[in-house]
């Protein structure tokens, strides 16, 4: 249901796990490493995590989504370590009876993950590096 790993993520594995005969809709969000940010060329991203707490916070997201919407399954995989441009950082898959709930729960999950889950990324440029969102 939850995985935080240094190994490459496979969206197909995550997606296939949420299918169910009672679900008519599956929504999947995949976050990838963009090649440019604020007009600067990104060389790589370095993700780190406070693992136990991150797992707990992701559990809270799934639990909250289950209370808000009648979803069938929600799976969240996040990668950490060094990622190059184009690689997948996060995959969230949600299944539900109808599509509205799948979209809403998936968007809630990624929005909340970005606010609460202790994972940090440092963007490495050709001429420097920066912890994303650290400063106002």
């Amino acid at each position: 249901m939850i995985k935080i790993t240094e190994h490459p993520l496979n969206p197909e594995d995550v997606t296939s796990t949420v299918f169910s005969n009672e679900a008519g809709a599956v929504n999947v969000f995949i976050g990838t490493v963009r090649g440019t940010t604020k007009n600067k060329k990104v060389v790589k991203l370095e993700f780190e995590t406070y693992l136990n707490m991150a797992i707990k916070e992701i559990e809270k997201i799934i639990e909250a989504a289950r209370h808000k919407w009648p979803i069938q399954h929600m799976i969240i995989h996040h990668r950490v370590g060094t990622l190059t441009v184009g690689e997948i950082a996060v995959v969230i898959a949600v299944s539900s009876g109808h599509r509205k709930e799948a979209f809403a729960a998936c968007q809630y999950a990624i929005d909340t993950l970005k606010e609460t889950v202790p994972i940090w990324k440092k963007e490495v440029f050709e001429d420097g590096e920066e912890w994303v969102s650290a400063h106002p």
Partner: protein
Amino acid sequence: MEVEILAFGITRDIVGGSTFKIFLEREATVSALKELLYQKYPKMKQLRSLMIAVDNEYVDEGLELKGQEEIALIPPVSGG
């Protein structure tokens, strides 16, 4: 009391390591800990936010620390 603190992300860079020790008064609040941190590491004041986690949970500024907890600095997160 001396407590060990975990530092992540930019706070790890600021303190120069993934853990560090700091002296606190007995039953110091999280708020008092943050004041001490800001004095010792002024760069932490420039962060967009600085949360404290105790035993893997975000805590309020008023919580009193006993010294046996796992305490961690949580600068602005940026996963996803």
